[in-house]
């Protein structure tokens, strides 16, 4: 009965959103009229890609537009599928609108196609009027400190997230949760996600789309009791957002701690008065958290720590991580300065932070070390103008500089930070650039006809919409058998088998 209800709700939501998308097609403004049938290619199939597709469909639909979406994996949706935590199903509602976009007969899906290897950017630019890069951030940042690559159980947050979200091959992750202490370096929302997943009651997770592998791991092998989330900067620069922090403090059987010393140098009222609203609310929340006394009943603990930079990772003779050495930092600033202006995060982030030589180097013991220090953009084709310093594709509001017909959107355009609302706005901006250029050309391109031919010549087994639909149905069916919204297929081979052999 319970699962039937979940299915009803999911169906209702799908109906709700399909009505939304269908209505969005019939815009009150006349769409841009072109003298030809534009063929657009989008590289990537996550939110950046699909919101861009939605805007293009809405504003160019009278021109018999064709949009081809290319995806490296056999399955679409990017980080909504593999990044958003399993206990955040509401955030995944956006998938409903993406599903409808893929269903549109003017949209094609090419899964299991790797741009840069299976197809070159130059080939895409030949076959399409416009090529939009929306492939997100595939790389990781490194601490570049001794011990980082020497010991086991030193793991990037991305790998843990991929593991609990069932990214193909992620179950091969060599992770050991049998110790009690975990340290997470980095304090953004991903760090909070990982901390929450490590200490959440397992029965809550069992009814989500968490991977079978991770569920089993958390059920049977997770002994973690204490998680430290460690930020380099201070409380005024906390990178996580209040919704996630609030959720952390409401977790069942988990106590969240913050040392009051983090606020000792501020006159709180003076400070709060100068902060912009979002920063003010989270700072006040952190202050109140720091004032709470420790509970006496045994609970799991998540501790937020600020102003510490990792110097060295330590391990034992068996090459397992045992701890991290941190130096302590401090703000190099007079917070009593009445003229100081803190009304933006830029200004707060420019407050100098220096080593606090009055404090000793600190050793934090841990059996698991997670690096949650951000993703990095990577260039997938040498023909793409890439700014290595800024770590983004060279662009002007989404129009790639130095390559006619090429555009970008999402994290590959503005850097690997931001949530859905940033992505929708970003996609809107890039779409404007496409409209402006398309209005000035009149050129029929071959599009999918040409590309499919090339892929077949190269024996690339691509997954189309129907193939994805088969995978989707298989996952939902498997999930139903065990009370989950879906059980994701765990390997590329399995996905291709279901998609292509029928």
């Amino acid at each position: 009965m319970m699962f039937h209800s979940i299915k009803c709700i999911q169906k209702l939501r799908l109906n709700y959103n399909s009505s939304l998308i269908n209505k969005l097609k019939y815009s009150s403004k006349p769409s841009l009229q072109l003298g030809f049938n534009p063929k657009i290619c989008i590289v990537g199939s996550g939110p950046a890609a699909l919101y861009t597709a939605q805007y293009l469909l809405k504003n160019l639909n009278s021109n018999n537009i064709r949009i081809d979406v290319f995806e490296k994996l056999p399955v679409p949706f990017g980080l909504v599928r593999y990044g958003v935590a399993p206990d955040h199903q509401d955030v995944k509602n956006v998938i409903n609108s993406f599903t409808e976009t893929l269903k549109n007969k003017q949209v094609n899906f090419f899964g299991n196609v790797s741009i840069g290897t299976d197809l070159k950017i130059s080939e895409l630019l030949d076959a399409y009027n416009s090529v939009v890069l929306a492939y997100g951030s595939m790389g990781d940042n490194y601490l570049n400190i001794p011990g980082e690559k020497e010991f086991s159980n030193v793991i990037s947050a991305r790998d843990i997230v991929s593991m609990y979200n069932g990214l193909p091959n992620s179950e091969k992750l060599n992770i050991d949760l049998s110790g009690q202490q975990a340290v997470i370096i980095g304090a953004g929302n991903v760090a909070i996600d990982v901390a929450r997943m490590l200490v959440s009651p397992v029965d809550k997770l069992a009814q989500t789309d968490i991977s079978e592998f991770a569920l089993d791991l958390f059920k049977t092998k997770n002994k973690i009791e204490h998680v430290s989330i460690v930020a380099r900067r201070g409380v005024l620069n906390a990178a996580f957002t209040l919704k996630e922090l609030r959720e952390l403090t409401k977790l069942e059987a988990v106590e969240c701690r913050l040392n009051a010393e983090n606020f000792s140098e501020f006159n709180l009222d003076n400070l709060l008065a100068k902060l912009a609203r979002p920063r003010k609310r989270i700072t006040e929340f952190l202050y109140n958290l720091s004032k709470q006394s420790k509970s006496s009943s045994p609970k799991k603990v998540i501790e937020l720590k600020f102003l510490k930079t990792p110097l060295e990772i330590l391990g034992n003779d068996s090459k397992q991580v045992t701890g991290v050495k941190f130096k302590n930092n401090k703000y190099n600033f007079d917070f009593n300065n009445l003229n100081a202006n803190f009304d933006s995060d830029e200004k707060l982030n420019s407050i100098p932070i220096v080593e606090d030589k009055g404090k000793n180097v600190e050793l934090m013991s841990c059996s698991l070390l997670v690096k949650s220090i951000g993703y990095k953009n990577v260039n997938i084709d040498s023909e793409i103008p890439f700014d290595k310093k800024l770590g983004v594709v060279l662009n002007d509001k989404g129009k790639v500089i130095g390559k006619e017909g090429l555009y970008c959107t999402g994290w590959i355009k503005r850097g690997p930070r931001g949530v859905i609302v940033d992505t929708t706005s970003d996609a809107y901006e890039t779409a404007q650039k496409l409209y402006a250029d398309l209005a000035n050309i009149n050129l029929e391109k071959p599009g999918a006809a040409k590309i499919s031919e090339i892929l077949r010549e190269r024996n690339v087994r691509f997954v189309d919409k129907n193939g994805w639909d088969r995978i989707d149905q298989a996952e939902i069916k498997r999930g139903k058998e065990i009370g989950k919204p879906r059980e994701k297929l765990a390997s590329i081979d399995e996905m291709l088998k279901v998609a292509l052999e029928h």
Partner: protein
Amino acid sequence: MSFGLVSRLLTINSRHLILKPNLINQVHNLSSNKTINLFFVDRNGEKLKAKAKIGTSLLDVAIDNNIDLEGFGACEGTLSCSTCHLILNKENYDLLKPPTDEENDMLDLAYGLEPTSRLGCQITVEENMDGWVFVVPKEVSDARG
């Protein structure tokens, strides 16, 4: 009862279907077929008229009236995004019940946040809102650039 409304009235929590408390009003008002007129001002400054059913949310109103707002309601009214951000005038803003912590947390992430900003999915249409104007903020990119 619209599908959208039902899907947002209920949420799964642990083993129970729970009626979301801040939408209980909508249930009481659903039996009435009364509508009032509301206005949305879109990003281009165009004023769009909408027929709003009492008891529905502003997100429902935008959808039911085909109001053309880019990316509106991405999370389907579950307080997981801030794409249904609307700005009211002070007079009307003050007449509404203040936002919950959860709504404020998402408003914190919205572009062009004003003291009279609200999330459309959290505003329930009531009779006294006849003629109210809701402005979609022009800003599409964060001050961070």
